[in-house]
């Protein structure tokens, strides 16, 4: 174990491990089949080190299970942000980072040669001018330093006015405390907050799905391509079949489920000329291609399709263009009006009509009614009838319902099978 390093070079490798430990907190060493036992041991030791307060060990027959016990109701930040703070570096990297930034704190502009001289005279550290120039150029690209031409020479300087303004502004720290938990790229808000030596003590986020921060590097590449209106090539690994594939598409929008935190890329496939969605956690790599001349037109078309989308599917199994689902519900008036409110609030544009006392009809026409089933099931106990032009949806709903009656020992012999007979 002497060569064990707490920090790592590459994020994609650890991404899979953290996800597995987080999502499937029940795999033992022998069940991680893709990697050697030694790799598993090192990765496991790293995770234990980074996420100590949240790691739980359970001893089972085949060994110990490592899982992450994270209750989002109790946390002021996302513990998995730690994984983003593990990038390895060289001794020169860290020394140059602090000395160059310290040297330039007063706002003066210096050439790489002058910086090298000052590092020796002021800090008694000797560096090769090439190494200093390389670091300054990297930091200019990262935005930490300003790079300007002064006559024939290149000078580097540092502008701390924004950092100073932020430090003196409590309101922005409150905003960052909130957005690091609840917004896109929360990890950036979190590092900014740490940089300002502040931490969230005011906000909690309900329905927060911490694991998805692991997809933020992929999201970053996708948003970058969207900003440039360019096409991309993506490498995908299906979690179900463990199969790898690639696709060329024009990335248009990120679809996010607030119920599971799951995110999808919605893109346009040039080959099949249709919109489709890819789960972000299945995308392993994004390669930018050329700018798309039809980007704005495709984005407008996608917006026109939105009212017909229930979730992320643009096509049903039955290959109909559109299907209509009608659900009739019982809601006692006036005490159960919250059911009607739920239909309006959660029904994504479907119409809600009162058809009789205590009886309401909800109707919607979408691309894929199959996606609606989980939501429809949340009304179990109130559904008088369910009809859908996609018969497989009706069939699945009733088959699942009967399976549930059976599972919980609820007699269903004398049920009116008018709807069920349509299966």
């Amino acid at each position, binding site marked *: 174990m002497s060569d064990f390093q707490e920090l790592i070079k590459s994020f994609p490798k650890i991404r899979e491990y953290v996800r597995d430990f987080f999502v499937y907190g029940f795999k033992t060493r022998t069940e991680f089949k893709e990697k050697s036992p030694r790799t598993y041991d090192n990765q496991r030791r790293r995770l234990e080190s980074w996420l100590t307060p949240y790691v739980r060990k359970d001893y089972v027959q085949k060994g110990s299970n490592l899982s992450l016990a994270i209750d989002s109701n109790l946390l002021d930040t996302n513990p998995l942000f730690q994984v983003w703070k593990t990038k390895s570096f060289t001794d020169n990297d860290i020394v140059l980072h602090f000395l160059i930034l310290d040297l330039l704190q007063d706002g003066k502009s210096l050439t790489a040669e002058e910086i090298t001289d000052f590092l020796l005279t002021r800090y008694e550290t000797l560096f090769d001018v090439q190494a200093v120039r390389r670091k300054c150029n990297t930091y200019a690209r990262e935005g930490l330093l300003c790079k300007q031409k002064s006559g024939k020479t290149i000078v580097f300087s540092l502008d701390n006015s924004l950092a100073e303004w932020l430090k003196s502004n409590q309101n922005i720290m409150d905003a960052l405390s909130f957005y690091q938990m609840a917004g896109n790229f929360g990890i950036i808000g979190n590092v900014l907050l740490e940089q300002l030596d502040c931490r969230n003590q005011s906000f909690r986020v309900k329905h927060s799905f911490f694991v998805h921060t692991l997809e933020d590097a992929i999201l970053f590449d996708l948003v970058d391509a969207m900003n440039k209106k360019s096409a991309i090539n993506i490498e995908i690994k299906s979690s179900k079949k463990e199969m790898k594939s690639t696709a060329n598409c024009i990335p248009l929008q990120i679809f996010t489920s607030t119920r599971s935190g799951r995110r999808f890329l919605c893109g346009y496939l040039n080959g099949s000329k249709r919109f489709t969605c890819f789960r972000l956690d299945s995308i392993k790599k994004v390669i930018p291609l050329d700018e798309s001349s039809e980007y704005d037109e495709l984005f407008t078309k996608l917006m026109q399709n939105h009212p017909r989308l229930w979730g992320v599917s643009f096509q049903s199994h039955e290959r109909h263009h559109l299907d209509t689902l009608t659900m009739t519900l019982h809601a006692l008036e006036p005490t159960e009006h919250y059911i009607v409110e739920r239909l309006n609030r959660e029904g994504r544009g479907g119409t809600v009509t009162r058809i009789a006392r205590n009886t309401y009809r909800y109707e919607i026409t979408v691309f894929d009614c199959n996606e609606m089933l989980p939501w429809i099931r949340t009304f179990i106990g109130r559904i008088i009838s369910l009809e859908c032009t996609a018969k497989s949806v009706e069939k699945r709903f009733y088959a699942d319902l009967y399976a549930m009656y059976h599972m*919980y020992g609820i007699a269903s012999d004398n049920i009116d099978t008018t709807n069920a007979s349509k299966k």
Partner: protein
Amino acid sequence: MELFSEIYSCYYRVLRHLLCSQNPLTIKEIYNRICQEGFEESLLSIVPKIESGAWDLFQKNGDLYLSKLSPFFTTPLSALEKSYLKALLSDPRIGLFLDEKQRETLWHMLASVPPLWKQEQFCYYDRFADGDPYQDKTYRQNFRILLEAQKKHQYLDINYNSPKGNRVHHYYVPVRLEYSVKNDKFRVLALEQNPHRQKKLEILNIDRMETVKPTDKILSSSVDINSIIQKSYYKEPLKLHIINKRNALERAMLHFANYEKNTMKIDEKLYECLIYYNQNMETELLIEVLSFGPMLTVIGNERFLKSLKTRLKRQRDLQT
């Protein structure tokens, strides 16, 4: 711009704090700082680098380590951080935090910076349609009063319209402001002023508040909010069996990822999951379980099982 970069690393943060120390540090003080702020095993990596001088950032004076940096060292913002801030300026909720003048100042400082993302690039397709009115002046005022009071542990005089339509008037001290991504709403976790009762968290929707007025009273005792939440959980968790069909296992693991849970494998196709919850979460958890249909089987607790069966019986009765 790199998201996974050493400039955002834990080691750089620990070192910055050590280097900005006003006083020379003993090695013990350095140890303590690393233990507080670093990872579990960071000590083993950082200390040898400082002691050997490989990270030549301190001057050694006897047993003391003196930083070579100015104590006023400030890390400038990276392009990524600036771009992130610029994107936040277009978020509808930013007005809850920054007033118009502050937003203008920040906008001006970031004039040449492109936003990291644009609002229209994201679609929250299953978010509830009745989110809070973030542009409303009274809502913003109430939000700011609540946030200030939360920080000062100050009691507030709140007039509130309860979901049942009753007007409630009480003195509360806000303990946390809770945002729901799904509901797109802020709620306040608050303690009611009542010296005779055990501290119990009340949950109040900000958009249901008619008036919010600060008082002079400050909560003198400290509040361990996590302990209050954990004490509110039922002793017996929800016990589920998950049949790994139609990708139900992964869906369930992700879906219930926001709860404290523990999952065990029973056999090749069957998994057991324990979920810890309280009365406030009960209805939501029940409909989440129902949404999975027969892929999840509720084994216990009795209370949850009874609620589930009641819904199914009611459904059966509607069909007969």
